[in-house]
């Protein structure tokens, strides 16, 4: 992100850093230590395991590229990758507009907004497993709340999970319920950073509420949209617990995403080596996707001064 990219923000930023005497590299050591211990070391082990055959007992046996060539020709992997892609795109398309509107709305003043915002943020406090279990029982086609409500609404029965589309929609909904508050919080914070004078100036020019949203708020939130999108996309690629509990990858394998496939191969089939290969492939893809997103959107050039750049 650094080389040959002209921009006045870079040198000015560097100068600021020197003058304000920010902490040196030493301060990053604890974080780096944790990162190495809990991220890099396991990653290295997974990379090693992907070249072995191991059933979880005894010593792994080196098998070279066997797992990787199997992965390339495995239809289950291709199918799961497609499901992960669908889930990622669906998550982004559903959560971004919802979180954006909710965040901007809750950024406004007023007691009712503050109270409702607090309520909206509640799902943030709950664990994924608890959220998934609660929704699974609410959406249970036989004994859940929807089973009572569906006939009233004119549905024959509430068999949401019996079609791929239904199961996918249920996943998108529950994941949205859980994660929209977090992204809304990002947007709320960002929307409050938008200088009030911009809105006042636009209002003087006769811009209505909608026009101000499109022409002032949204452009000012650009960096937040990118940040939130990167988190969403990379997060979606690794969804596991909600899928396992809510649909178990079903009906059939129609909501089996890559992490769930890893789990099934690793912890049900006990093919730890092959599961590691799939997991490592997922790491590579996730990293590539997030780097690509950062490049394409110019997120890397984002600086703390961007809000002022708008002035």
């Amino acid at each position, binding site marked *: 992100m650094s080389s040959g990219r002209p921009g006045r923000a870079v040198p000015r930023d560097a100068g600021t850093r020197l003058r304000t005497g920010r902490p040196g590299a030493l301060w990053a050591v604890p974080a780096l230590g944790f990162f190495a211990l809990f*991220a*890099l*070391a*396991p*990653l290295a*082990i*997974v990379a090693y*395991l992907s070249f072995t055959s191991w*059933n*979880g*007992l*005894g010593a792994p046996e080196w098998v070279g590229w066997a797992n990787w060539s199997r992965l390339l020709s495995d239809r*289950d992997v291709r199918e799961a990758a497609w499901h992960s892609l669908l889930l990622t795109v669906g998550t982004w398309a559903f959560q971004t507009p919802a979180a954006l509107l909710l965040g901007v709305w809750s950024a406004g003043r007023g007691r009712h907004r503050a109270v409702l915002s607090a309520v909206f943020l509640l799902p943030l406090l709950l*664990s994924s*497993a608890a959220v998934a*279990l609660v929704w699974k029982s609410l*959406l*249970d*086609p*036989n*004994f859940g709340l929807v089973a009572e409500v569906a006939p009233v609404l004119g549905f024959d*029965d*509430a*068999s*949401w*999970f*019996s079609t791929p589309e239904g199961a996918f929609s249920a996943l998108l909904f529950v994941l949205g319920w859980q994660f929209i508050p977090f992204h809304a919080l990002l947007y709320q914070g960002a929307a409050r950073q938008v200088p009030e004078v911009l809105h006042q100036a636009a209002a003087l020019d006769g811009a209505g509420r909608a026009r101000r949203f499109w022409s002032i708020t949204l452009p000012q939130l650009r960096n937040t949209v990118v940040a939130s999108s990167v988190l969403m996309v*990379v*997060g979606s*690629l*690794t969804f596991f*617990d909600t899928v396992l*509990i809510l*649909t*178990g*990858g*079903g*009906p*059939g*394998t*129609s909501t089996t995403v890559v992490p769930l496939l*890893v*789990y*099934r*191969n*690793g*912890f*049900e*089939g*006990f*093919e*730890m080596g092959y*599961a*590691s290969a799939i*997991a*490592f492939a*997922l*790491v590579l893809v*996730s*990293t590539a996707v997030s780097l690509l997103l950062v490049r394409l959107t110019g997120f890397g050039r984002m600086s703390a001064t961007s809000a002022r750049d708008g002035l």
Partner: protein
Amino acid sequence: MGVGEVLSRRAFLGRAAVGAFGLLTLPACGPGGPGHGVGPGALDVWVWQDAADKVQQAAVDRFNASGAGRARLNRVPGDGYEDKLRVAIGSSKAPDVFFNWGGASVKEYADAGELLDLTPMLQADTAFGKAFLPSVLQAGMVGDRYYGIPMRGTQPVLVFYNKAVFADAGVSPPETWDDVTALIAIFTEQGVTPFALAGADAWAELMWLEYLVDRFGGPGVFERVKNGDVRGWRDPAVLRAAKAVVDLIERGAFGHSFSAVGYNAGGASALLSRGRAAMQLMGSWEYANQLAADPEFARGRLGWTTFPTVTDGRGDPDAVVGNPNNFWSVTAGVRDPEAAFAFLRTAAEDAYAADLVGQGAVPTTTDAASFLDRSADPAFARFQYDLVQRASTFTVSWDQALPSAQATGMLTLIRKLFAAQLAPAELVEALTALPRG
């Protein structure tokens, strides 16, 4: 995110166990957790958590009171039991004694040297070995060595039905496949799901194929696969069974939403007991679960019968599929082998057998017949006992008999068959191509 996927699974399992199951069952400890008031030397005993585990709890209580040693029962939730076990045994958190499905299910542990060979113990104490039916004790063997002690009742898979629903419809339980299709038409007409099916659990779907293949082609078909010859899947009986399953689904035998119904949470059994479904194909443990959830239903309206006969089937109509029993195995790193042996002996005690029959189970001890009249339901106990006595073969659940990689692949394919993602012919091809692991 996305970093260290596999290793973080272990963390996830722990979190899920605490977060999800801990919420629902506060008294239960996570696997491998510290003992409560039993002391650090206590045997860590893992059992599959269900309604029948109070028998094992009573055995642990008696054992602790006897002074022969100390043990603590760890009731591990059934979802993910096997992966928790694998991770624990592969690490330093191995239980001392654990519940399993016998020989094939612990073969990988035995091969890896993780299990204690019980053969010397059984040779030293011949009376103990003779307490069990030889055929069932053998089901706990790997090769020519004993690794398991039978610790629950025998578990044939049966057709359970709701007597009230049958009485309302004025029909009787199916005896032949024609009866099955006729009943499906009658019940779907009345808005009752003919068969409750825990379709979220592929092993529940698997039971249909196990029985149909056995009825169409006899026990030799799966025996061949089990012995390592995957061409056994190409036997016409497998294709015919898969087609019969598809036919059942298309007739609406399982309703529309079976893929969201689980067994361990009691979903399928509740459908049966509340009359939303007429029948359920399930292992005999269904009785204990119904007895715990709805005693009045279990005692009054729960009926049972054998799997129906089929036309032109080569299999014996008396053959059964299921689990001969569950077993205790002891890990190689057991803290106190003598205490573990003393604990295993509780499985042969009269009090233990009496507790088992109290749950509607039929113990596989040689003197089980004398206990049957004390059963929670003597008629059910007698029915099971006679069924297993009469059976020419008792085919072990396929997912327990095959190596885990092959079993997992098979279960995935069966999920797909039931979700109409695979045609019967494609199922046969895909089964043949599964890795042996």
